[in-house]
């Protein structure tokens, strides 16, 4: 019995906690989205279930479970069933490489437990791959629905995500050039000082990555694949019950992931400036929990930003979307990559 089960158990525990947190985050986000939009729109929003309507997501979840799961006769069944699963799994997979804290130490376990599911060397690549795969879910959903509106939605999603993947990549690369590493943990550690945050070193890259993040998650003003007023429901027109709910969750998880990516790459991730750590005397596990808190707080600000934008802006048209992607974001991204490279070569004293 020389196989060490401990890392496996730790991994399982970490995965379950993160998945639980993600789903919890999704339900909180639906509540925030609905209450937040209600505040902006002079409405009350959900306020019946539990205090401030906080249990509304549970009620919604139950409702989705009890709805009839309609499988229209004209759909391509295997892909139709697989599509929401692909969307959801890819969205969750991407979060695996995001570090959300330093490391925990326990007496019964001699190694430190890093607070990231997979601290792999090519972490960013894995994330991009998973995010890129996510579009398959939407595309296949649109295609297999055998409905013209859905198909248009799927096609829009495909071209949109492919176009913005490039901008997203450039936004990521401008940080990778600065960091010289693809491990997100290292990138975070680099940004420990407040002024070392990459947003100050690569502001354009931040902008590009943020806009691309909106587009990747299909949120307004880039929600063209589902554009309710044009394509009825877009790719998920034919979906009902839990299958629809899976797309819904995938969207919110993608939102959380892309916010997390932005926070990690540009806003210092979970790191707390050393001076603040000293000031409060944070050590060991307490520090790790504080880091998690900081990460979640940064994430929450971004998620609120997503909600705020969604309820304020109209939607782009398809050609305008492409123009922004190809003519504005990609040149800006390249500019930033070049600037980052120069920054690395010249290493200005004042930074």
């Amino acid at each position, binding site marked *: 019995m020389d196989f060490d089960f401990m890392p496996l158990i730790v991994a399982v525990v970490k995965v379950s906690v993160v998945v639980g947190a993600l789903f919890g985050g999704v339900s909180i986000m639906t509540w925030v989205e609905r209450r937040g939009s209600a505040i902006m729109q002079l409405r009350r929003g959900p306020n019946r279930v539990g205090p401030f309507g906080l249990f509304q997501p549970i009620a919604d979840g139950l409702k989705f479970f009890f709805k009839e799961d309609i499988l229209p006769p004209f759909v391509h069944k295997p892909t139709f069933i697989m599509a929401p699963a692909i969307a959801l799994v890819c969205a969750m997979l991407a979060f695996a490489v995001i570090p959300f804290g330093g490391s925990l130490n326990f007496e019964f376990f001699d190694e430190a437990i890093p607070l990231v599911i997979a601290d792999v060397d090519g972490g960013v690549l894995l994330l991009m791959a998973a995010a890129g795969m996510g579009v398959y879910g939407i595309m296949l959903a649109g295609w297999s629905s055998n409905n013209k509106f859905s198909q248009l939605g799927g096609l829009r999603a495909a071209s949109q995500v492919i176009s913005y993947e490039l901008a997203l990549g450039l936004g990521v690369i401008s940080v990778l050039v600065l960091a010289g590493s693809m491990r997100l943990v290292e990138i975070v550690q680099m940004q420990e000082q407040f002024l070392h945050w990459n947003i100050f070193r690569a502001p354009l890259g931040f902008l590009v990555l943020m806009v691309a993040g909106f587009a990747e998650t299909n949120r*307004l003003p880039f929600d063209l694949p589902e554009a309710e007023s044009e394509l009825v429901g877009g790719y998920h027109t034919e979906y009902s019950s839990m299958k629809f709910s899976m797309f819904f969750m995938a969207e919110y998880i993608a939102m959380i992931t892309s916010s997390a990516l932005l926070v990690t790459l540009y806003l210092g991730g979970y790191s707390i400036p050393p001076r603040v750590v000293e000031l409060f005397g944070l050590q060991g596990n307490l520090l790790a929990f504080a880091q998690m808190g900081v990460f979640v707080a940064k994430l929450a600000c971004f998620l609120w930003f997503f909600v705020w934008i969604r309820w304020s802006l109209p*939607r782009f048209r398809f050609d305008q979307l492409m123009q922004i992607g190809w003519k504005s974001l990609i040149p800006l991204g390249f500019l930033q990559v070049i600037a980052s490279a120069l920054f690395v070569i010249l290493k200005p004293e004042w930074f």
Partner: protein
Amino acid sequence: MSEALNQKSPGFDSSDHENEIITLNMGPSHPATHGVLRLVLELDGEIVRSCRPDLGYLHRGFEKIAENKTWQQFMAWTDRMDYLAPISNNVGYALAVEKLLGIDVPPRCKDLRVILCELSRISAHMLWLGTHALDLGAMTVFFYTYQQREMLYDLFEEITGARLTTTTVRIGGMARDASPEWLKKVGEFLDRFVPVLDDCERLLTRNRIWMGRTQDVGVLSAEDAVAMGCTGPVLRGSGVEWDLRRAQPYLSYPDYDFEIPVGSIGDCYDRYLVRVEEMRQSVRIVRQGLEHIPEGALNADAPKVVLPPKEKVLSSMEGLIHHFMILTEGIHPPQGEVYHGIEGAKGEIGFFLASDGGPSAYRCRLRTGAFVNLQAIEKMVLGSMIADVVTIVGSLDPVMGEVDR
């Protein structure tokens, strides 16, 4: 039979790469077609190659109904034409019948009708603004405008007793008079309304996305607009200054000071600006109306047309007889034909009425703005994208109740 089966579905024929055209059926139940408008689109990718509007899903045969109802009874049907500005329709119909009868209503009635017409215009334009913004994805504006409409509906309810189908206008007068409190409430509403309109404009007018979505989309030249008989904001958006309130004045509109906003190139943005400015002008008109609405009689002095007040019915012989005759037989306008058009929220609402001297119309023809404006859609959407179709339908502002009648 077998030939039909062998034919490939026109939507997904992939063998012919030159003409990969998808036929897309937009509506009659589609979130952005504002009711039951059906558009059969042929798409090349996202680009519209042909568009065939299909109407009639809300056809209820109003023109025939008018021949079977008494003159006053038909008033209730006019509500259901442009059901977003029902009082305008009521007023238009009442004016047409009054023209036929040769009677004129007292100044108080005229001013009250003007106020109500302009309030309905605000209500209709507010709904348009909200749904147009919703179609383009800006959902918050929708709630802003709906809250204002809710307040307007409260005002309508107070004076007419109904929120949507008001039927408040009577031939030769009005069903109820406006109380001083009501007039005060209208003033208060206007004070609250203008800042909200400003808010909506702040969200949209200089918004880059909104401008990108509406500018140079659905351009309708002035010549085309005139040739197709477009009226209302659609015509004015194309730069033609034609407003029946000025061109063929009715009620007491000549006494009011207001401007007629016109667009320049006739795109969706121009039509948007025109409608928003029209709301501001309507506010101006209502404010003036509230100032100089005179005291005095509300109903015309025409005992054979206007129902006598209840106390007259109970106390005088003539009152009782007139009440009985009007309710059982209806009114009897002289033989003849009239046409009267008013400036409704969507365009010219015209009533052509032919009378053979009987208690109901011999023939009634309804000319509605939205129906005529809608024919411009084909010209406007060709070569644009699906998203533009939604914008264009929104900026034409059709109400299917008015289009199909």
